[in-house]
């Protein structure tokens, strides 16, 4: 009897996932950039009184909301907030994570201890509470939201980068650099950091997706970007009271969010297959 399953290495999502993810994200980015030209009219324009909560029709492909605004126009404009918040907060999180991880991994032992203690302390806290608490401290807005999401999302990156740094430290090219008498900081910044980039890029891509979801949840609670800025989370909140009468108001922004996040996850997974140094050898000989 042949084996029901073959004990080989884990299957690869493959090239298709990578390209599908990249295409989804590229399309979303294009939509965000071209929103004013693509959108049928002004997202904030109030329609006539009688055009409230119209079901999808040729004239309004995705229907209208309580204020007679076109859902499609708002959806296209909302992509800007989501993508901007996603990329910038991922940038903050990854930047902070790389700084902490690299410092801990290549600095002196006391620094490692101190930084990892802080990291563990931050990890020991449910992130949603932290987000809500920090956002409620100041007046809600897009910039604050992005900062807060970045500042609460760096711990995983820091641990990853530290582990990677510790293993790079044992490699010969780093030993050689140290043998030349370079300072630990120079070794860290000029010799270890460049080798970290595959790890960092994968972490960043996956982080964009979770940052987009976090931003949308804060907007859903009314703690994110404020009117007249359009955001998908706020659109879903607006559709919630009329969910049972006008499903289209809340449904389409959620679908858009899911599509963009699927794109990020596919791209991140695909990139990991290609770039992860531990799997590099496997990928290359195939």
């Amino acid at each position, binding site marked *: 009897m042949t084996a029901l399953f073959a004990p080989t290495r884990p299957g690869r999502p493959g090239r298709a996932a990578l390209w599908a993810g990249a295409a989804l994200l590229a399309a979303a980015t294009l939509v965000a950039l071209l929103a004013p030209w693509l959108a049928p009219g002004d997202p904030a324009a109030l329609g006539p009184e009688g055009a409230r909560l119209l079901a999808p029709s040729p004239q309004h492909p995705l229907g209208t909301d309580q204020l007679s605004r076109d859902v499609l126009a708002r959806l296209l404009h909302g992509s800007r907030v989501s993508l901007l918040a996603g990329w910038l907060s991922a940038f903050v999180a990854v930047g902070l994570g790389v700084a902490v991880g690299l410092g801990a991994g290549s600095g002196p032992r006391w620094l490692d201890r101190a930084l990892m203690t802080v990291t563990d302390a931050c990890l020991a806290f449910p992130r949603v509470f932290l987000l809500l608490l920090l956002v409620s401290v100041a007046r809600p807005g897009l910039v604050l939201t992005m900062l807060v999401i970045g500042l609460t999302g760096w711990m995983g990156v820091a641990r990853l980068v530290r582990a990677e740094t510790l293993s790079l430290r044992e490699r010969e090219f780093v030993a050689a650099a140290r043998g030349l008498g370079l300072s630990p900081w120079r070794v860290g910044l000029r010799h270890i950091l460049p080798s970290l980039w595959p790890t960092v890029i994968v972490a960043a891509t996956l982080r964009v997706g979770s940052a987009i979801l976090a931003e949308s949840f804060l907007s859903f609670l009314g703690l994110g970007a404020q009117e007249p800025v359009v955001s998908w989370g706020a659109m879903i909140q607006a559709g919630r009271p009329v969910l049972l009468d006008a499903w289209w108001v809340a449904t389409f922004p959620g679908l858009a969010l*899911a599509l963009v996040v699927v794109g990020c996850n596919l791209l991140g997974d695909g990139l990991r297959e290609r770039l992860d140094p531990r799997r590099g050898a496997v990928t290359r000989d195939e």
Partner: protein
Amino acid sequence: MIPWLARRLLWSLLMLALLATIVFVVVRLAPGDPVAAAVGEAPDARDGQLLRERLGLDRPLAVQYLRWVGQCAHGDWGHSWRQHRPVADVVGEAIGPTLLVTVTAYVLQLVMAIGAAVAMATRRGRAPDHLVGGVGLAFQSMPGYWLGLMLILLFGRGLGWLPSGGFGSAGAADLSGGARLVDLLRHLALPVATLALGSFMATARYVRAALDEALGQEFILAARARGVPERRLLWRHALPHALLPVVTLAGLHLPHLFGGAVVVETVFGWPGLGRVAVEAIAARDYPVIMATTLLAGALVTLGSLLADLGYRRVDPRVRLGDPGAT
């Protein structure tokens, strides 16, 4: 073992103290005025001042902090400013519902993850592998609150099978035991489904990787050589091996579960800790904010302690390592 445990406990307490201090300072530096939030719009200047004095808000921050610590040390969590009840009551009522929904969801997502991982690992590269992976990825990428709304739309409205929110029907208190249980389960179904659907894929990927690894090990080869049927090999030999770390490290899942609880309780009007916390933050109800935060922090710390303990028990190699490493 004992010195390690003592050090670990002390460490956890220190973390909680640090957490309490940070949250205390952050909340009180916030610009919003709790007195205004409690009294209503634009309180009379003198009334507001009186209330501030009574709550001790006119004192320096350090004095307020020490007073709060002293009260807590006596087991007094203070009064909710918004609900005018002891904080212990407010929070105590909410723990049960939160544990009910999170624990049920955890078990359900574990079962789903096992099913998905087995389906993917045994049909590697074929249609079921891609299908399960794709569906899981889709659920994983959806905003949880939106998934909840869609389930309400589908099962609450479209099919009319399940109630769309709340902890029980209006007349549930009068029902008999069995009927009440059914009523509770019907209300539990959608929140639990929302949490489990959103999180099972992350676990499934982990189990699948562990399963792949286990299937490549020599004890599987040896069992196969002895003529153990493939099905039995999978369920009785490889799967327990792959699941051990997952179950042992369940405690590390707690922060994630809490995050999910906040989302689900908000959407379904479930009277749990997450909703209490969200409302307290909105109303600047300091005593309740402190209590929910600390409770969540304590449970998360406990979870990671249990995970450490479990892992040390299961994997002797950990015990030989640096005992101070946490």
